[in-house]
């Protein structure tokens, strides 16, 4: 396997606003061709970090390299090669979709991507003549993705891309982001939605109070912090409970009428439960496993829910 090539390198980044430390000595790398997510609650320092990397904010200390450039010093060189979507951005209320696309494509030194094709791909073709203020939240976000992709960038930054959108638009946009990766681009995003991170990101960095707590793939983080597994099943056999309690590494069996919730740790738990059912010929009418999510990981490592 080829070693992944880092195209964003952040080391010992620190940023304060007056006496408030927004980002406190963080280091990470983003690899070529991946979707990397910075996840954490609002106010954790995600946007500040992202904007320092994009060159929109000065840092107090630390070093940042993006595509081999210093984002603050070489901002104009860098902007030709990156695409940016900002959190809660707006355009002029009365600008038309096609005007925005035309303006953006005139700004870059290299030949722009085909704006009309992008609009089509993002389902905005029939909105070409619509004014920005008449677009729905999802349409605005899709337009911002078009604008972020207009210069055919190597690296795309997406800040809280789906905040405030309904589930349907959210799923559509996730599909688009996967499409960006499929075209060989790298995506660096922030989100406070754990489901989004889990479905979209190859690797995530959990950030809280300006510090990175851990970085890894969502699956590895789940395995590391939340190794417990849960099996929920329905069995009418009166002997069942005793057998379940005898399974190795089972920590808890909760029974509610015929419904059992079996908790334990380790990847083998589910196999062990199935073996127990089959060896003892226990009939079950329902069987499902409940896996911990990034949401649980977050709760475990920070001691609080991300929604607080």
């Amino acid at each position, binding site marked *: 396997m080829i070693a992944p090539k880092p195209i964003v390198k952040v080391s010992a980044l620190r940023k304060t606003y007056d006496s408030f430390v927004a980002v406190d000595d963080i280091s990470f790398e983003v690899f070529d061709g991946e979707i990397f997510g910075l996840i954490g609650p609002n106010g954790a320092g995600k946007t500040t970090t992202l904007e320092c990397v994009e060159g929109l904010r000065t840092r107090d200390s630390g070093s940042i390299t993006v595509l081999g450039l210093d984002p603050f010093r070489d901002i104009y060189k860098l902007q030709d090669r990156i695409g940016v979507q*900002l959190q809660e951005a707006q*355009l002029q209320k009365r600008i038309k979709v096609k005007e925005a696309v035309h*303006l953006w494509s005139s*700004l870059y030194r290299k030949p722009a991507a085909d704006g009309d094709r992008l609009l089509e791909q993002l389902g905005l073709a029939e909105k070409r003549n619509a004014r920005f203020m008449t677009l729905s939240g999802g349409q605005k976000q899709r337009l911002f993705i078009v604008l972020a992709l207009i210069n055919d960038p190597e690296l795309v930054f997406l800040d809280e891309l789906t905040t405030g959108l309904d589930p349907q638009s959210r799923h559509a946009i996730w599909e688009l982001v996967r499409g960006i990766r499929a075209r060989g681009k790298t995506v660096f995003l922030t989100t406070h939605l754990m489901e989004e991170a889990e479905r979209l990101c190859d690797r995530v960095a959990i950030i809280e109070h300006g510090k990175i707590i851990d970085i890894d793939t969502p699956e590895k983080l789940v395995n590391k912090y939340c190794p417990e597994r849960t099996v929920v099943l329905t069995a009418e056999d009166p002997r069942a409970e005793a057998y379940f309690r005898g399974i190795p590494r089972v920590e808890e069996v909760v029974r509610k009428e015929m419904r059992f919730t079996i908790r334990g740790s380790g990847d083998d738990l589910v196999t062990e439960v199935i073996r127990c059912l089959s060896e003892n010929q226990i009939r079950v009418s329902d069987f499902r496993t409940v896996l911990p999510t990034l949401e649980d990981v977050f709760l475990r490592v920070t001691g609080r829910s991300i929604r607080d």
Partner: protein
Amino acid sequence: MRGLWQLTWIEIKIFLREPLGALGTVFIPVIVFVAMGKLGTKLFQPSELAASRAFRIDIPVFAALLIAVNAVLSLVSIISIYREGGILKRLRATPLRPQTILTAHVLVKLILSAITLALTLFAGKRYYASGDNVHAIGFTIALLISVCSILSIGFLIASIVPTARFAQPIGSVILYPMIALSGLFVPLRAMPPGMRWAARALPLTYCVSLLQGIWKGDQWLAHVGDVAVLAVVFLFCTALSSKVFRWE
């Protein structure tokens, strides 16, 4: 300055799409100017009118100044609305240079003011006959110098007002009293000493002196002082706003 013309052109179109955008900025000054001229010709004999300083000089200069001040106020308000909406920040996250974004807005205002002024003077020609011997190019240059200077004050205001809601009122409170004291309504000579001192401290006073002088045919040499003051105001405000301007 890549993207300057595209941005300027789009901003002009956007402005004209505002409800009352074109009507308010371009046509209302023309209508008011013509109405005053009509009123003048009704109330006075042509000979009286020709002798009236108000109709010969003050009203045309006032109209020019008002158009300039309105343009500046509209600039202040647009900049703060764009800042509050995150539009400035969004534009800045492209290869557009910051000075390109701001220059485009200044150009929009200059172009619209020039059109308004040209229309105003053209429509009012019949009523302000004495305007015939005005040196149009000289007056345009004088106006451009004045507008740049007032615009730089506007930018300084736009740099420091906290929210869009306050931009227009704060701009008005700063700029309109300057018109009142500028010597346009009460000549500086006739003011009490304290007021005169205040008037001398205000940049618009020098705009008025320059515009009136050039309108009535003075030599530029007589107004080197005015131009110098306006240039200093421009440099000072531009330098200061480039230090304190906030993009978000």
